[in-house]
């Protein structure tokens, strides 16, 4: 393979806070050789390199998505490693971190190894599983953290379940600290949120949906933050969505606790009214929030309080969504819409591109110790070329994911991926 010189690009590098015209050289080993304004012109690269004209579009690190569900094992009809790879590549996501909420759950080193192997065989993008924090994700007994990490798990989480018992949570955090693992948590008080499929509000009251109060989030987070103080474990809130929880997060960060948080695209882009006439694609967990909470989350993203932006890609087949709202499965696919949802914050002039990419790529990579998420020379060639302003309308039928349950269906978006490279290899082109 010859080196590739991508010229006439708008370089976005969160690691160097760079947003400038220039070019980039992908080396023969699939890593970034060099990049910068001096490589803007076609002739400025090494002799004999292949050339690609970026046409002035943005060249940025591929997204590192900390929250993705794949159906393997157990629900391959919803999403396989092959289909999730197609969807991720098209959405500009070059690393997916997979939730252990499978059937059976990823609480066994052999299952983690199986998933790693499947991903290596058929997935176009990098896929790393998180392992279950407790056996069977039942919230009672600790899983084998060291073995799970050795098998290739990159973090520990019980997925969309809170460990409700504070004694168990505390021990999990203590033990996880000793193996140095990042622990990821579902911050919903499980008892308070048990029956709810909508946020308690005027609107949900009118629809007559079973509700859960928004306070269920901050209650869970505040309890956990006390346990982080006790244990010193690395703690990550898997999805944060309310103003009150954001305040708690801010205070914890100011105190210097080892705490970080992700925000899901649908939580900062949509609010409860998108449920409209009982649209079950908008049934997500935690549920879509009131506008004040959505706005607070958007603001927190804009100021950089949030560490990672995720798609919370959760494929569900038609069967499990075409049901009365309360019975419908939770989740929305998002790999192909999360970049455009994030770019909307840029188009609204709330945030600059390097700062946005910090949350889309660099910071999530740092949290898990990946060397991707940046354009630093020597880093792996996980790149995307993005037409930042390209308008499009989400058509769920046209999504590459096996499941078509998009909460963003029919929405107008701006920003399309033109090409995606993983480890220097072109895996998607539009």
């Amino acid at each position, binding site marked *: 393979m010859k080196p590739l010189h991508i010229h006439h690009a708008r370089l976005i590098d969160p690691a160097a806070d760079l947003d400038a015209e220039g070019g980039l050289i992908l080396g023969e080993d699939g890593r970034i050789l060099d990049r910068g304004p001096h490589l803007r012109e076609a002739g400025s690269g090494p002799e004999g390199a292949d050339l690609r004209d970026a046409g002035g579009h943005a060249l940025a690190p591929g997204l590192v998505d900390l929250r993705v569900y794949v159906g393997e094992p157990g629900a391959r009809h919803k999403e396989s490693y092959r289909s999730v790879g197609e969807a991720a590549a098209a959405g500009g996501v070059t690393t997916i971190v997979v939730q252990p909420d499978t059937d059976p759950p990823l609480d066994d080193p052999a299952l983690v190894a199986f998933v790693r192997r499947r991903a290596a065989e058929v997935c176009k993008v990098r896929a790393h599983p998180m392992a279950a924090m407790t056996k069977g994700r039942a919230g009672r007994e600790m899983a084998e953290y060291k073995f799970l990490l050795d098998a290739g798990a990159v973090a520990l989480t019980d997925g969309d379940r809170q460990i409700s018992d504070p004694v168990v949570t505390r021990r999990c955090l203590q033990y996880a600290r000793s193996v140095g693992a990042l622990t990821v948590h579902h911050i919903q008080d499980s008892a308070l949120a048990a029956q709810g499929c909508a946020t308690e509000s*005027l609107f949900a009251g009118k629809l*007559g949906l079973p509700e859960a109060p928004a306070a269920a989030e901050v209650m869970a987070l505040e309890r956990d933050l006390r346990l982080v103080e006790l244990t010193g474990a690395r703690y990550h809130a898997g999805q944060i969505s309310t103003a009150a929880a954001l305040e708690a997060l801010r205070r914890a960060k100011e105190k210097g606790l080892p705490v970080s948080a992700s925000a899901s695209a649908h939580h900062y882009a949509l609010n409860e009214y998108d449920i409209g006439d*009982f649209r079950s694609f908008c049934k997500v967990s935690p549920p879509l929030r009131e506008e004040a909470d959505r706005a607070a989350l958007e603001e927190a993203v804009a100021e950089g309080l949030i560490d990672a932006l995720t798609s919370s890609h959760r494929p569900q087949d038609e069967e499990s969504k*075409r*049901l*009365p709202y*309360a019975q419908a499965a939770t989740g929305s696919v998002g790999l192909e819409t999360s970049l455009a949802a994030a770019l909307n914050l840029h188009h609204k002039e709330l945030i600059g591109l390097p700062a946005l990419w910090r949350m889309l790529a660099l910071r999530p990579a740092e949290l898990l110790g990946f060397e991707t998420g940046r354009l630093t020379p020597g880093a792996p060639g996980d790149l995307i070329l993005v037409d930042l302003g390209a308008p499009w309308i989400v058509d769920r039928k046209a999504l590459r994911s096996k499941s078509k349950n998009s909460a963003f269906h029919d929405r107008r978006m701006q920003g399309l991926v033109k090409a995606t490279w993983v480890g220097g290899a072109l895996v998607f082109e539009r």
Partner: protein
Amino acid sequence: MTDIPFPQRHLLGVEDLAPEAILQLLDRADGYVEMNREARKKRDILKGLTQINLFFESSTRTQMSFELAGKRLGADVMNMPVKSSSLSKGETLIDTAMTLNAMRPDLLVVRHADSGAVNLLAQKVNCAVVNAGDGRREHPTQALLDALTIRRRKGRLHRLNVAICGDILHSRVARSNMWLLGKLENRIRVIAPPTLLPTGIERFGVEVFEDMEQGLEGCDVVMMLRLQLERMSGAFVPSVREYFHRYGLNAEKLARAKEDVIVMHPGPMNRGVEIDSELADDINRSVIQEQVEMGVAVRMAVLETLAERLPNWRGAGALA
């Protein structure tokens, strides 16, 4: 009768209805009240039309009321027995809807335990759908029959003080009545313990009272709601006897209301839980039996109105 302003294909809730549409439905129902009091009640307005009653949640009185309404207008009425059908074998709501739709009914009357389920079903069929109650959300014909009862007793349906008492949180009857009476500019009060009130109830445009006697002060109409058995002991209220003590309607509490107050209940009643037995039978105040009568008339008006909106409607009594 002149064409009424009723743009909806289905009747899914009163929240979607314009006040004029509500009043014209009631006018039409008034006519049917008189007709139903004659010996020969049957008309052939809906002759040739098929009406299917699909009750996923069992209800004797509402289902019978819809059945009678359809039959008196000459429709062929069929009750789909949900319990013994394939629905209990795991067929989804939408598959059932598609199957029924293929049999080409004209009117589908649906009750379901989940909010929004009837809306979902209505998206998948070609016929007109009447919501006979979905979860906690709406029960439009109940609100219409309550309105008809009030209008006939009070001579008007605006500027009345109406108190709705009991389990507001879980009640579709309460929600539909709040929307309907609110649209027609009545003053609505809700009386309930805080555990049985939805969040943000103040913003529904109603006054909230946790003290029943205060809430009943000067009321023209009192609507009592049924408290479900499973919610009585400990979960939402401490006990039946404490509930009756604080929120059960008796003559003493009712004395705070206007002298000509009427007492309503959607049925079936829990005597001694939400309403004193003697009061329930007081013919001067209790209009509970009248509500049942109005129910048939209102449902006839609804079925006829929706039938007229069917794309293949060829006029009253025309053979299909």
